[in-house]
């Protein structure tokens, strides 16, 4: 059905409007829906990112940490191996010197040029040795040299060994020819890599001429060299608890207790591996610290950050896409429909329709709502029409009541008047007059007869006067009744309602009022000209009834002709009659037609083609209604069985 645009509430926006702020109640619903969707999507995003972060931190990150710890363990092993290598080097040098004929001869006292030939010069420095000691078998120091920890400064033997003997710790005697001692030893000048051999001939033969002890300090210089070779930071601390930096005391305790060979401490930058270096007696001497940069962890942290960032970007994109899809596929259509429903609800304008051709569930909802609106509009009009008719009936009953009330005194009065006039006073007056005309009447009777006649005549006159008065009164009652009728007539002539609508909407509504209209609708061909004539201002309800009547007439004519397929054509055109502009609507059918000579009489009251002779009010009413509107209805029919064309002229 086409829309008739009667906007009762212009303040309410169009249902298709896009501004989201003027309709409070609609917005509260949709904002709520939007907010809910946003909250759900946001929560999903946050939960996903949170779970990802937890997975990264507790599953992936430890893998990188493990890698760093393994790397630290490897570095510690390497540094320990380097120290062992150095110790081997010291041992190898010592072996060359101690198992040599010249040294053997020197300690046996038969080679006095030995010191000048072999031990002077930069030899010790060249071989990175800090200590060379030669003892005779009675453990007396025969020759010794000790280079300082710093700047290669010589420590005089007298100062180093004031008693002329080395301390006991350095006294190493060898019981057999192939015995040797090597390892770490704490000295008062610092920790040393020590090697000790018995002094033998070049062919490793005895007798033992003494003991040869070589040493190299494990000092800062040495650790720098270790760092240079191992490419990691190395530090050495005295294993004596009191001398240790505070943070390392617990680590040293743990290592001394033998819980693990290596302990690891992680800082932000490095993994610190600790191990104990024991002296030749097996006692803890030094705490070795090897720092390995946390390369894998740093890479891992960066990888995790990058992964989380890319996840954030990807999921934000997904949420955005989902949000846009929801918005354009569901939220916006629902918002539009909600606004429309609220508009219809508030304005009661059932003719306003949503003109979207949406598919899917929302589209179905829109179409269903439109159909519901249409059905409601028809029901509303039907109710309006019924209430109009009920109002007319009620008004008629009221008028009848008033007339009956007014008739009651009138009929009563007339009834009484009739009975009075039927029994006039002095019924014997003719007899009395006749008797008075005679001669033989006693005087007394004559007097009484005259009195009777006079009284009767007086009563007659009085009754006559009374009757006239009462007739006047009944006339007044009649005037009252006439007034009731006049008032009613004036009421029924109140101005009809003119509505702005389209002819197409009127025809559509008229068809929907036909009994069995679903079966008849396919018969009806509406010419495009009906749409073309556009909006008209007219008495809509009356015109709908007129067209329904004419259509009904056409349907009946088709049925009389016993046609299987009826054709009812509706066309329209503008027409100018002098200064007056009219709309001509023609409704043609292929029914039984009108018999010749009946073209005028069909509009007369009581004309009918129905077999039982009932009806005949429809076309008469149509003609009267159109006349009252200033319009006209006429019919043309070539012959019986040739169909009928009705012309309806509507003033514009």
């Amino acid at each position, binding site marked *: 059905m086409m829309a008739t645009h009667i906007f009762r509430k212009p303040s309410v926006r169009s249902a298709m409007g896009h501004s989201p702020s003027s309709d409070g109640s609609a917005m509260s619903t949709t904002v709520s829906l939007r907010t809910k969707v946003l909250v759900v999507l946001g929560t999903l995003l946050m939960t996903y990112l949170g779970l990802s972060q937890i997975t990264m931190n507790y599953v992936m990150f430890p893998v990188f940490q493990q890698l760093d710890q393994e790397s630290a363990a490897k570095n510690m092993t390497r540094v320990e191996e380097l120290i062992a290598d150095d110790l081997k080097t010291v041992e190898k040098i010592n072996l060359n010197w101690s198992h040599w004929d010249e040294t053997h001869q020197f300690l046996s006292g038969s080679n006095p040029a030995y010191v000048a030939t072999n031990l002077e010069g930069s030899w010790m420095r060249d071989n990175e040795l800090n200590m060379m000691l030669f003892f005779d078998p009675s453990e007396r120091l025969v020759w010794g040299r000790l280079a300082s920890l710093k700047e290669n400064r010589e420590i005089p033997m007298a100062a180093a060994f004031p008693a002329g003997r080395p301390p006991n710790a350095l006294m190493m005697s060898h019981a057999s020819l192939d015995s040797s001692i090597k390892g770490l030893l704490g000295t008062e000048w610092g920790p040393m890599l020590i090697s000790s051999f018995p002094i033998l001939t070049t062919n490793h033969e005895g007798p033992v001429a003494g003991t040869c002890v070589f040493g190299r300090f494990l000092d800062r210089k040495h650790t720098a060299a270790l760092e240079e070779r191992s490419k990691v930071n190395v530090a050495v601390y005295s294993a004596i608890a009191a001398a240790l930096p505070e943070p390392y005391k617990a680590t040293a305790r743990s290592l001394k207790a033998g819980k693990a060979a290596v302990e690891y401490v992680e800082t932000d930058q490095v993994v610190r591996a600790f191990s104990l270096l024991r002296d030749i007696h097996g006692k803890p001497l030094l705490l070795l610290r090897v720092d390995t940069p946390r390369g894998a962890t740093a890479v891992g942290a960066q990888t995790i950050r990058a992964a989380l960032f890319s996840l954030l970007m990807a999921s934000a994109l997904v949420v955005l896409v989902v949000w846009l899809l929801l918005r354009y596929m569901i939220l916006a259509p629902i918002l539009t429909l909600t606004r429309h429903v609220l508009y219809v609800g508030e304005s009661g304008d059932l003719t306003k329709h949503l003109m979207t051709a949406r598919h899917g569930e929302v589209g179905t909802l829109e179409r269903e709502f439109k159909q519901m609106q249409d059905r409601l509009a028809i029901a509303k009009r039907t109710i309006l029409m019924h209430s109009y008719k009920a109002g007319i009936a009620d008004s008629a*009953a009221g008028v*009848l*009541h*008033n*007339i*009956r*009330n*007014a*008739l*009651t*005194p*009138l*009929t*009563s*009065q007339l*009834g*009484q008047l009739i*009975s009075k006039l*039927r*029994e006039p*006073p*002095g*019924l*014997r007056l003719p*007899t*009395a007059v006749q008797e008075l005309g005679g001669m033989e009447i006693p005087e007394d*009777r004559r007097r*009484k*007869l005259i*009195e*009777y006649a006079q*009284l*009767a005549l*007086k*009563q007659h006159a*009085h009754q006559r006067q009374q009757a006239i008065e009462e007739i006047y009164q009944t006339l007044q*009652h009649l005037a009252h009744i006439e007034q009731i009728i006049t008032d009613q007539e004036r009421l029924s002539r109140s101005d009809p309602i003119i509505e702005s609508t389209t002819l197409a909407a009127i025809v559509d509504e008229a068809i929907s009022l036909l009994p069995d209209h679903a079966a008849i609708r396919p018969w009806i061909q509406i010419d495009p000209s009906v749409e073309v004539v556009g909006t008209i201002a007219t008495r809509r309800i009356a015109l709908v009834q007129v067209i329904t009547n004419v259509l009904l007439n056409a349907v009946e004519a088709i049925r009389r002709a016993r046609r299987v397929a009826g054709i009812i054509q509706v066309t329209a055109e503008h027409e100018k009659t002098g200064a007056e502009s009219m709309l001509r609507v023609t409704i043609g059918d292929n029914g039984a037609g009108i018999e010749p000579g009946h073209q005028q009489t069909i509009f007369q009251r009581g004309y009918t083609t129905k077999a039982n002779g009932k009806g005949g009010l429809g076309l008469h009413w149509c003609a009267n209604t159109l006349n009252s509107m200033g319009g006209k209805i006429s019919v043309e029919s070539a012959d019986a069985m040739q169909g009928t064309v009705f012309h309806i002229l509507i003033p514009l």
Partner: protein
Amino acid sequence: MNATAAQRCRILVADDDDGVLEAFRRAFLPDPDDAEHRLLEELEQGLFGTLSPARQVPMSFDIVTCTQGQQALEAVQEALQRQCPFKIIFLDIRMPPGMDGVRTAQRIRDLDRNVTIVFITAYSDESFDTVAGLVPPPTKLFFFNKPFLAVEFVGLASKLCGQSQLP
């Protein structure tokens, strides 16, 4: 009220239309020229010895009128207190703005089981059966449709009041 009045047939009429009340008053109240009329009849009887057969001794009624149901109810209560109850009550069915006739009749019936109630109505929407169910018993209930002739309700009243109630 004197003894004569108490013996007369008492009638109550309630209708919101003054014209209807006037019709009742005119029908039931004696003609003001009755004395002169009687003199004429006496003369006629004296002169000719007979009275025309149509002449009947007129009934005498005591008529009370009101325009609302509540007034009718009050009149019934007062009459019962004074022990001179109404014999017949004519009630209009629609008497805006107050109680309608059917409701008035129900309340009157609660006070007086014997009174005959006659509904006078210009509408045909109240069926006898419906109203009879509301205001029993049906033997003491009548319907008059407007418009009616005075002779109809005078006849009914005469029949119901009977000869014993004549003065």
